[in-house]
């Protein structure tokens, strides 16, 4: 064998330090007290110690804290029992099972290794050691011992040990400031006090959890994902992971979070403006492609909330990153008059399987098999569009159009403002009842049914919004008779499908200032291969 084991120094139960390997060979047997097979092996190891202990250390790293004493007393052990309660040596030696037996040379090279209790293996080892040391073999009543017993899992593999030990080993990857929270402090309250929260409790981002979260991406911990406005903070993979932990994400969500963060931090999306506007905009995140299924996103019943971890926490992670890394906090750069609940989270998957149309990401130039995140800056919604009566395609399309009149204000038309329309499956069925009904036709229908003469948009005693009276007067009756649809162009109407099969309720998100003046929707491919 060429395998070589790392050096360790452990204390015996009486406080002496034992350091191995070296100088000569040694027998090292890892055990834990509550493992029945370890209790079978312990007297055998003691016999080895009696026979060879003068010529070669025979030691027993034990994982059980106080149980180590119990083990000693139960079997009257006099061999050095080494306290590996922290399981660091078990972890470093990468064992899986206890008892785990290593006969090593002076350099830690493994001469022989086996696990559990296979009587023949122990007998063979007895003969090998006796021969190598030129000593009589240990006297053991082999017939009184079972021929075979499986071992138990090593204690260091329990998550509460393994994650900590991994964090210690890999901690060098972590560069974020470590915050020590005193025992007397409540971790949850501390995080509220520090302003890390969006108002809801957070999962504490311990190094163990952050390291586990970073396993969700192949990107290196210090890779820069995005510069996050308004403070232009640097969101490394590590910072993204910290906030993802706090949001309650699973590691497999990381690629989606990274793509969504890249999207919101583009100049086109302008998350500074989205955060700062008094109108109260928030990113709405739509996920397309195979990753939806892989990470268990909801595209069906209650897709827009609540109850699904991926939908809920991916959106929340983005918001926390903008707040914590970007510094966009309410009362600071975040100046929303009323705020809105989408500022906690708004993320869902498109129900591509229930859609007769090319999915959103394909419409935007990606391949169907790509996983893609698209972000929209929205100020309101989801606002329901209720039509349970229409049975003709143009009727339900008409209702959808009328349902969008509320964007900004029903009176206002020709708006250069995005809407994200979420059509429910039952409305899809009605739309398709006479054959294909394209997205283009739906957009055209929305524009057609919302056409109103400009004169209806003139400021009047009912509402001062719209065309100022003085300008209307100059325009004259003929120009004021011209028809204006709700949106300044069909390109402002974005359409996806989501929801369950029961219920004739589509919904719409209402946009913010669309275009270079405000925000443009952005799509990013998810790097999840």
């Amino acid at each position: 064998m060429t395998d070589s084991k790392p050096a360790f120094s452990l204390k015996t139960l009486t406080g002496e330090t034992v350091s191995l390997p070296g100088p000569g060979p040694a027998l090292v047997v890892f055990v834990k007290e509550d493992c029945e097979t370890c209790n079978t092996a312990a007297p055998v190891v003691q016999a080895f110690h009696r026979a060879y202990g003068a010529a070669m250390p025979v030691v027993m790293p034990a994982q059980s804290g106080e149980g180590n004493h119990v083990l000693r007393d139960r079997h009257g052990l006099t061999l050095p029992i080494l306290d590996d309660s922290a399981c660091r040596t078990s972890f470093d030696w990468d064992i899986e099972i206890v008892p785990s037996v290593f006969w090593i040379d002076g350099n830690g090279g493994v001469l022989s290794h086996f696990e559990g209790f296979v009587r023949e293996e122990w007998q063979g080892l007895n003969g090998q050691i006796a021969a190598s040391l030129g000593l009589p073999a240990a006297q053991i009543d082999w017939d009184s011992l079972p021929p075979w017993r499986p071992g138990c899992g090593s204690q260091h593999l329990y998550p509460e040990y393994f994650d900590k030990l991994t964090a210690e080993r890999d901690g060098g990857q972590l560069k974020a400031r470590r915050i020590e929270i005193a025992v007397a402090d409540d971790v949850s309250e501390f995080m509220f006090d520090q302003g890390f929260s969006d108002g809801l409790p957070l999962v504490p981002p311990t190094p163990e959890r952050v390291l586990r979260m970073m396993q969700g991406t192949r990107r290196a911990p210090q890779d820069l994902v995005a510069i996050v406005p308004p403070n232009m903070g640097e969101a490394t993979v590590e910072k993204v992971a910290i906030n993802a932990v706090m949001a309650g994400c699973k590691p497999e969500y990381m690629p989606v979070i990274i793509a969504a963060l890249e999207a919101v931090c583009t100049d086109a999306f302008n998350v500074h403006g989205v955060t700062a506007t008094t109108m109260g905009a928030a990113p709405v995140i739509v996920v397309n492609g195979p990753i939806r299924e892989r990470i268990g996103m909801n595209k069906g019943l209650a897709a827009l909330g609540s109850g699904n971890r991926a939908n809920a926490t991916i959106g929340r992670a983005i918001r926390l990153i903008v707040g914590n890394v970007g510094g966009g906090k309410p009362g600071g750069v975040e100046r929303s008059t009323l705020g809105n609940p989408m500022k906690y989270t708004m993320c869902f998957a498109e129900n591509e399987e229930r859609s007769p149309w090319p999915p959103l990401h394909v419409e935007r130039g990606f391949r169907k098999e790509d996983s893609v995140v698209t972000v929209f800056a929205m100020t309101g919604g989801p606002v329901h569009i209720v039509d349970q009566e229409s049975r003709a395609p143009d009727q339900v399309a008409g209702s959808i159009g009328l349902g969008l009149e509320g964007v900004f204000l029903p009176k206002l038309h020709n708006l250069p403002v995005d809407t994200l329309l979420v059509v429910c499956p039952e409305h899809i069925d009605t739309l398709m009842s006479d054959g294909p009904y394209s997205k283009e036709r739906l957009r055209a229908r929305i524009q057609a049914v919302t056409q109103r003469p400009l004169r209806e948009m003139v400021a009047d005693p009912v509402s001062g919004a719209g065309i100022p009276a003085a300008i209307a007067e100059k325009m004259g009756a003929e120009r004021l008779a011209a028809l204006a649809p709700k949106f300044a162009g069909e390109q402002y109407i974005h359409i996806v499908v989501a929801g369950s099969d029961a219920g004739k309720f589509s919904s719409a998100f209402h946009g913010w200032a669309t275009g270079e003046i405000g925000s443009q929707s952005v799509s990013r491919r998810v790097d999840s291969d």
Partner: protein
Amino acid sequence: MTIILDPTDERKPVARQVSPRKAAISGTVGLMDIRKPRGNVLLDELERQLMATVPGIKVQRFAKPTFTKPCPDDLRREIAGKVDYLIEALAD
């Protein structure tokens, strides 16, 4: 002790922030005796000097039940409602 990693861009120190300091003392100053021996001596002198140097302020005295335990929540709330400043005296 729990260790967490800083989720922010780390431009601000993490330690609990000290409340903003006003330029001048006015209103009511609370003096709290944590109940260590001779804490009252220190606070008496402090009160005398405060009244002499900052005319017009009021001083109100408080005491924890015992120095060995944190200030009870009720007392904390009472103090927060009654004073503009609080000086907590150590002793020994």
